[in-house]
Structure formats: structure tokens, C-alpha cells
């Protein structure tokens, strides 16, 4: 293509150019002599406004703008898993090879390695008529993920040429298909897809299965469904990133996509160093075999930050189309919103609340609505995308626009609380401010797989916590001693729930991942103790007798002394409690 624009204006990542007739909106362009990656975000007669994804230092008016004819897209094929990309899908290990420890500008690298050969197993025959999204061949991308080569969503046809099983690189044409209008399409090991467009599916299904995270406060109190959406808002130091890391490590999704959007460089390094050494509790394989990282740290170009979220979700949708359950962690969506604001400011758009552009809610909605549990395009399988977005409200004030607008589009709200974090109660998820709208949809699953009375148990514990918070208000005024004993018992039980159940250590080998059955049994035992102690209070047995230090201490340590496989020990402990209180009752 010979179309060529000319730069007329430069202000940071915003560049304007003339002679741009024929360019399309959202087109990927190369800007200036050193060909920086950019995207057209506004067209006005022959003038275009371009958002540039790299530093524009040294660029001059008069330099050229090159057309590519297609929108900003990602390359979808084998080699994505285990990799770490920047916001526009450039693999960081290759950038390092090309430009060293610091990322230089205008470096061109392939998203996927074009030389690597993959062991391909063909799953169709010549003459088969393939629908959009239908499986053609399979590759063992990692030891846990089988990569499915599918017909791209906008194509279909009869297989007229096909290679045999064997080793091929991604650029190799493995098949040709002919559609009803006699158009012939070549199928390679990869396809391209624009990041701002959701990939199609056949149907959206109801959500019915939880995404288990091994984190007690989430799974038991505020569960999220596979295909659901959640937000984790919290001020700095409340543990957003910590929680996101825990979710990335222990969620029972098939594939995790972790988007570090405008956050710290060392945190990405932490993940890079830690994940290969961790093993997945389900498969026993390295975590990195089911993880994709996208990193746009806070010092990397701000416009690529805006794109990183879309890059991540498009990669997720591609694997969803293969029939996998994907969990996407975006840390943090506030940085993405701020990137929108920064670009909007440079475009001199009319600002809405706190300087954010008026289209912020629209963008947020578009993003969160890409989550869901779907029947894939060819109807062959089901897959899901669960979206978990961290929100960083300025001054931990949840009334700011990003938190408020996010709340409108997510159904799980895991509110992090600075005062809990200050007293080192982790995860610092405030049980009174958080909610999950999935409880009722997930109840049948929990009834079937955990216990019939799961929801009742959860609700009783929740009302105890609620009651405790009311009592604490009184205690703050008059002290604990003046409360009647039945209320003091509630305080003690709530303490057991808070320390023995809600608090969970990410660093303890046993405690870091709590199986859903173990969760049930710990809570069961705590409430059993309550049931046993209550009648004794009525008999005027003093609290000091009911609160046996040895018994309570053992209960508090169930979480980090009893491994997931040994929950019988918890059941035995339940009898120990019954015996203790029986004995106490007999002596009164």
C-alpha cells in the first residue's frame, strides 16, 4: 500500500496527521521514520488523530505515517501460554533480546515465534464441510493445554487441501477450505483478530458453576461463577495485588490471563519468578503452563496501557472458543481508566466527572460484558471467561467514578478494607461491604457437591458477623463486660469466624489453599460450637468456662494444621467439642 500521511502536530502520545483520506478508523499505523506503532482514534476530513503506543521524543512534523489497512489486532496461535507480552502483544523476552534491559522504541518483533515447529494432529478429513469455529487440528501447547486450531469465525467451507500429521511452524498453510461462493481460504496455525471486537459465539448460557479459588472468604461467603464478573476495589496497601495473585495461583480455571495494567514492575517479576515453581493443585504441573502474562507497568507508554486490557481479553476469548474456562485478572482497571482520561485530556475533549471522559461507563460496560459462559461458535463445546478487575480508588474513596461505574457492571464486589489491612487481617475483604449476586445461581451446585445445608450455614455465619458488628458499636461505648452473656458468646464466635475462617495466610503451606469441603467443615465446626455453648449460657455457665483456651486455640489452628486431604480430623474435632460441652453441662 502506498498511502502515506504527514505528521502536523505532536503532543506526547497524541499525534495529528494530514493527507489521511482513505485511512480507516481504529486502523493500525506506523508513525514517523522510526515507525512507532499507533492507532487512529479520530478522523476529520483528511486529518487524523493518532494514539501512539511508544514515546514520541524526537519526532518532527512532516514525518510520514504509514498505513497497514487493518485494525490493531493480535496474533492468535500456539506459543501464547507461558509467555509474557506487553500491552500490544510484543513478547518481552524477545524485546530483551533485541533491545536489552531497557525497552527501546520502534523495535519490531513477532508476537508468536515464527520458527518454532509444533507437533500437529489433524482431526478432519478432506471433503469435510467445516463451520466457523470448528476444530481442524490439535497441538499439545503445554502439558495441560491442548491448543485447538479452529476455522476463523468469519470463514467456513469444505476442506480441499490438507497436510498430514507432522511438525509445522505457524506460517505453514495446513489446509485450504472452499466456501459456497467458491472463495478459497488458507488456514495457518494462527489467525488474527482485532482487539476491540468481541469474538463471536453461538449462545450465552446460564451460570451455574463456581470458580473455586481456595480462598475461604470468597468461595464460602462471596462466590463467583465461572463466566462471572467481580471487582476488587481497595486503597493502596489493602492487598489488591496480593488477592489477585492468590486468585491467579489457585483458581480452578483452565487458563489464567494476568494483565498487569499500569502497576509495579517488580510485581510482574515476582510472578515471573514464582509461578514456574508453583504447582497447580489439580494437575500437579507448573503454574506457568496455564498462565499468560500481559505487562504494561506504570512507566511503560500510557496508550499501550489502554490497549493491554483488550489484548488480554481477546487472547482469553480465543482459548474460550476452544472450550476452556478462562479467568482474567486485570490489575488495575483504574490505571486503564486513567489512561483513557490522559488521552482524552490531550485530545481536549470535554471532561465529565473528575476529568474522566463521558464515555467511561460505556467502555467499562463493553469490557465486562465480554465475560460469560458460552456455547462455542461451532456448537462443539462450552467455555467461559471470568473477569476479575482490581480497582484503585483515589484515597480509598469508593464514591469515585471508576468504582461507582464498575459496580454497575459487575455482580461480585469484594471490597478491601484499609483498617482490616492495618490490623493485618488478610485477605482484607470487608464482609459487610462485599456482596455476590451469584449465591442463588450457585446454590444447586454447592448443595450437590458440598452439602445440602451449605447456604444456610453460610447465612447463619453471615448474620452472626452482622450482629457482632452491631454489638461492637456498643462495646466501643461501654466495654464488653456489661453485655449479657449470650451477646458476649456471639462476640467470641464471631472472633472464631474472623480469625479461624476469614483470615487466611498466603504464605502458609497448608493455609494458602483451602479445599471447598475443608472450608465447609471448619465453618460447620465453629457453628457447632456455638450451638453447643448456647444452651449452657442459658444455664448461667460463665463465659470464662465456655471459652476454653485449649479448645478455642485448636479450632483457630484448624486452617493451618489440617491439610485438605485430612478433613476427617475436623469431623473428629467436632465430637471433641460435643464431649467438652457435655462434660461441662454435666458438672453444672
Amino acid at each position, binding site marked *: 500500500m502506498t498511502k502515506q500521511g504527514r505528521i502536523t502536530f*505532536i503532543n506526547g502520545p497524541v499525534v495529528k496527521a494530514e493527507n489521511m483520506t482513505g485511512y480507516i478508523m481504529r486502523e493500525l499505523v506506523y508513525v514517523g521514520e522510526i515507525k512507532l506503532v499507533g492507532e487512529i482514534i479520530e478522523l476529520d476530513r483528511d486529518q487524523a488523530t493518532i494514539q501512539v503506543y511508544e514515546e514520541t*521524543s524526537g*519526532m*518532527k512534523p512532516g514525518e510520514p505515517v504509514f498505513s497497514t489497512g487493518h485494525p490493531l489486532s493480535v496474533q492468535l496461535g500456539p506459543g501464547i501460554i507461558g509467555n509474557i507480552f506487553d500491552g500490544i502483544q510484543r513478547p518481552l523476552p524477545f524485546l530483551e533480546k533485541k533491545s536489552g534491559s*531497557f525497552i*527501546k522504541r520502534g523495535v519490531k518483533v513477532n508476537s508468536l515465534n515464527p520458527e518454532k515447529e509444533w507437533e500437529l494432529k489433524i482431526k478432519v478429513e478432506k471433503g469435510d464441510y467445516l463451520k466457523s469455529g470448528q476444530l481442524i487440528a490439535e497441538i499439545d501447547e503445554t502439558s495441560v493445554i491442548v491448543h485447538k486450531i479452529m476455522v476463523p469465525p468469519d470463514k467456513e467451507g469444505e476442506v480441499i487441501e490438507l497436510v498430514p500429521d507432522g511438525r509445522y511452524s505457524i506460517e505453514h498453510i495446513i489446509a485450504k477450505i472452499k466456501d459456497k461462493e467458491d472463495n478459497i481460504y488458507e488456514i495457518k496455525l494462527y489467525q488474527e483478530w482485532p482487539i476491540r471486537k468481541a469474538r463471536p459465539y453461538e449462545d450465552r448460557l446460564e451460570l451455574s458453576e463456581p470458580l473455586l479459588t481456595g480462598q475461604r472468604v470468597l468461595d464460602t461467603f462471596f462466590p463467583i461463577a465461572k463466566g462471572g464478573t467481580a471487582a476488587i476495589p481497595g486503597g493502596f*496497601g489493602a492487598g489488591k495485588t496480593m488477592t489477585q495473585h492468590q486468585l491467579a495461583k489457585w483458581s480452578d480455571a483452565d487458563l489464567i490471563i494476568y494483565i498487569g495494567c499500569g502497576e509495579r514492575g*517488580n510485581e510482574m517479576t515476582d510472578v515471573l519468578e514464582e509461578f514456574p515453581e508453583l504447582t497447580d493443585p489439580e494437575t500437579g504441573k507448573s503454574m506457568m503452563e496455564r498462565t499468560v502474562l500481559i*505487562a504494561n507497568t506504570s512507566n511503560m507508554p500510557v496508550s499501550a496501557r489502554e490497549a493491554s486490557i483488550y489484548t488480554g481479553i481477546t487472547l482469553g476469548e480465543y482459548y474460550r472458543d476452544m472450550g476452556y474456562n478462562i479467568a482474567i485478572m486485570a490489575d488495575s482497571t483504574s490505571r486503564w481508566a486513567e489512561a483513557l482520561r490522559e488521552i482524552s485530556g490531550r485530545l481536549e475533549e470535554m471532561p465529565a466527572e473528575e476529568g474522566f471522559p463521558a464515555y467511561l461507563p460505556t467502555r467499562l460496560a463493553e469490557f465486562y460484558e465480554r465475560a460469560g459462559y458460552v456455547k462455542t461458535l461451532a456448537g462443539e463445546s462450552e467455555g467461559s471467561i471470568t473477569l476479575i478487575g482490581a480497582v484503585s480508588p483515589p484515597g480509598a474513596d469508593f464514591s469515585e467514578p471508576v468504582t461507582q461505574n464498575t459496580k454497575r457492571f459487575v455482580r461480585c464486589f469484594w471490597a478491601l478494607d484499609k483498617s482490616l489491612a*492495618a490490623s493485618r487481617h488478610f485477605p482484607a475483604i470487608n464482609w459487610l461491604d462485599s456482596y455476590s449476586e451469584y449465591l442463588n445461581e450457585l446454590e444447586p451446585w454447592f448443595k450437590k457437591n458440598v452439602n445440602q445445608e451449605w447456604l444456610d450455614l453460610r447465612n447463619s455465619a453471615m448474620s452472626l458477623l452482622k450482629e457482632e458488628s452491631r454489638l461492637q458499636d456498643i462495646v466501643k461505648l461501654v466495654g464488653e463486660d456489661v453485655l449479657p452473656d449470650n451477646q458476649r458468646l456471639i462476640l467470641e464466635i464471631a472472633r472464631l469466624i474472623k480469625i479461624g475462617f476469614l483470615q487466611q495466610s498466603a504464605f502458609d503451606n497448608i493455609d494458602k489453599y483451602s479445599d471447598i469441603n475443608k472450608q465447609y467443615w471448619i465453618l460447620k465446626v465453629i457453628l457447632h460450637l456455638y450451638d453447643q455453648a448456647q444452651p449452657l449460657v442459658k444455664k448461667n455457665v460463665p463465659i470464662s468456662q465456655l471459652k476454653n483456651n485449649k479448645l478455642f486455640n485448636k479450632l483457630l489452628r484448624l486452617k493451618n494444621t489440617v491439610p485438605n486431604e485430612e478433613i476427617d480430623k475436623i469431623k473428629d474435632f467436632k465430637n471433641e467439642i460435643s464431649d467438652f460441652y457435655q462434660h461441662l453441662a454435666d458438672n453444672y
Partner: protein
Amino acid sequence: MLKKEYTGLANINGPLIVVENIDDVAYDEMVQITTPNGEVKKGRVLQVSSNKAVVQVFEGSTGLNINETRVKFLKESMKVALSKDILGRVFNGVGEATDGGGQIYSENKFDINSNPINPYSRKYPRNYIQSGVSAIDGLMTLIRGQKLPIFSGNGLPHNQLAAQITRQAKLGKEDKKFAVVFVAMGIKHDEARYFINSFEESGVLQNVVMYVNLADDPSVERIIAPRVALTAAEYLAFEENMHILVVMTDMTSYSEALRELSSRRGEVPGRKGYPGYLYSDLASLYERAGMLKGREGSITQIPILTMPNDDITHPIPDLTGYITEGQIVLERDLFQRDVYPPINILPSLSRLMKDGIGSEYTREDHPDISSQLYASYSHVKEVKSLASVIGEDELSELDQKFLEFGSKFEKLFLDQDKDTNRDIEETLDLAWDLISDLPEHELDRVSEEMLDKYYRRKDEDGET
């Protein structure tokens, strides 16, 4: 290449000037401005279009006029010459020597806006730095390659604390390769002198590079100063393999200079008038801390900021906290009760601490005991607020014990002299001494094993 000189400006607005009818000018390039009476100033292109450039003048636009000012575009972005000779020297905010020792000449010129570090090339920081301050070493351990700011208020002893950390910081065996880059942004003359004296007394002055922009120096230079300093730090750390501690004070003045410039440019303001890109801008400084794979050196940052009106939710501390790896928060209440350093441990935090302490680095009991101190001290605060309502006498026996623990913790653990240097063993032993005043069953953060080994069981409790 021919450098064309233009005469005459279209507009002067504070430190910003507009030059028209230009040709071949690049975004972010350096500019030399000559005033009608021959004074030469430096500047930088902030925005450029086909025939017009907006230039920021570093030394301020005083003395410029519309018709006679001459402007020359220098065809390069701002670079600073660096060699090992910068150690022991003093420079102004744009990197010119001000100590009378002559300018630095070197083949090695570095762009002050360095490229971002590839996250894949980073090495995760794991080695702790012993500061000799119990509150920091025990509860918010500083790690080599970390950025850990001090959130302070006007009148609080943040300078003393920063100077003490700088004097006492112990990096193990490689002490020889340790140096300090000190950058002052809009600080008072007295404060600058305090630091120089403190470095001198402790004999580290020969290993200190100072970039000083004082409160009455041009505010635009304040925006350049930390970039020049960090470029020097990167040179020393990654070219000369040294371990560099960068002390940056005061980030509040820096942010205010940024706001001033943003408002002159007529940009859409964000919270409290600060530009919407304050986060990205601060990140472009803070994220220059760290370590790289395959290189020896490291950059550790201690930025200092004074929270306007002691408000931690103000945009400057707020955005800083979101970027840095924790924070050390000073509190006026402790200061007034004569506790030095007045560190409020509850909002303070070191994010990298978890990987740099424990048996491999400090001592096996460190993670447990620090978590327990936080939890117990947090309970002390609850008890205190209860006591202020119902009176201390009405508290339960247990709560009274907590109260006693709390005041001992503040007096014996937090409080220390400005030249007391406690090593990590001493700090941890002290912590166990104090925590052993609390009954064993209240210590739910400590494992049984650690309790058996370190808890000082008291005879009168009858629990041995």
C-alpha cells in the same frame, strides 16, 4: 548539522514560550534561548505542530522579550554527561556543577528520560538492607532495589530519619561499592545544609552525589532535577555496578511544580488541580528503582514527601502509595509524645519484605513476630479508644495488659536515639521481650514452633 536560530517569540506565559514559523523541530528536543542582554537559558520542546513550537524555559522566562529573544533548536533531547567523577560533587537541578569544581566532561552522555525497564529483565529484589532503626528493620524491612517512601508532615523529623537511614544503611560485605544520590527539589536552604553536614560527619560525603534545586530556584528545574539524578543513579548502578540509595526530597514540591506547569499549558486538571497524568509522571520516576538480571548494581529509592495537612488521601501521597512498594508513615501524635522516629506502624508497610526476611535472610522468627506485633498493636489502638470512653480502670485485665504492652512498645521498640544503630538480632529479641508480656493464647500469628523457641514463658502464669 546546521542549527538555525530564530529571532522573536509569539507568546510568553510564565516559563512557557511559543515560537512560530519554525521548520524541522522535533518533539522533546533541547532548546537554547538567548535573552536580549545576552544571557543564555536552556529549554525543551513540549508540543510541536507544523509551524509552531511550545517551549518550556528551565530557568524561567524573566528577561525575555517578544522581539529580540533568539531561540536555537539543538537537535537532541536532554542529555547529561556522566563519569565516576560525579561522586562527591554538587550540581544544580539541570546537572551543572555548582560547587566550583568545574563541569563534568565525558564521552558518555545519557538521555535523562531513560527507556522503561523491561519487566522481564528485572531481578526480583530479595536482599534486605539493615537500617539500624527497629521499627523499619523489624516491621517494614527495606529491601535492596525497593522504592520505599517516607510519608511525613511539615515539622516532623523526616529529614533526620532519612539521614539516619543513609548513615546506618548496611549492605553487607560490598560496602565499598555503596553510594548515595541525593536530589533536593524545592527544599529550604537549612534543610540542604542539614543533609550536607550529616553526610560530612558520617564521612560518606565522598560517596554522595547531590542535585540541589532549592525552594527559591526556578520551579521548572524541579521537574528536571530528579530525572538527571536518576540518570546518574542508573549510570552508577548499571554501568559501574554500585549499590545506589537515592534519597528524593520533597516529592510534594516536585508535584506542585508539575501542577504549575500544567496549569500554564491550559491542560484539563484532575484531582485538586494536579494534571491527569500525575500518576504516570510519578511512576516514570519511581519505577526507575530496581535491579536487573545479569548486573551487579541496584537502585533503592527513599522518596520523602510532606503530606499537605497530614492528609494521606491527598493525591500526592495517594498516587505515590499506589506506585511504591510500601510506605513509612510518620505521625504527629507520636512525635508530640517525644517518640523518635515517630513511625505509625499500622498504615506503614514494606511490600517486598515478605521475600527478604526469614531464615535465609534475617531470622526464622521474623515473619511471625512482625505479623504478631502488627496485630497486637492494632488491638492496643482499639483498647485505647475504648479506654478513652469508659476509663482505663474499667478495662478487663487482658485489655489492661495490652495497654501496658502498647506503651512499652512505643517507648522501648519504636523510640531510639538518632544515632542508635540496632542490628536485626537486637531488634527481634527486643520484640520477643515485649510480646512475652502478653498471654500466650493471645498470640495467634505465631506458630507453635516459634512460640516454643522464642516466647519467654513467665512462671506466674503457671503455663510452663
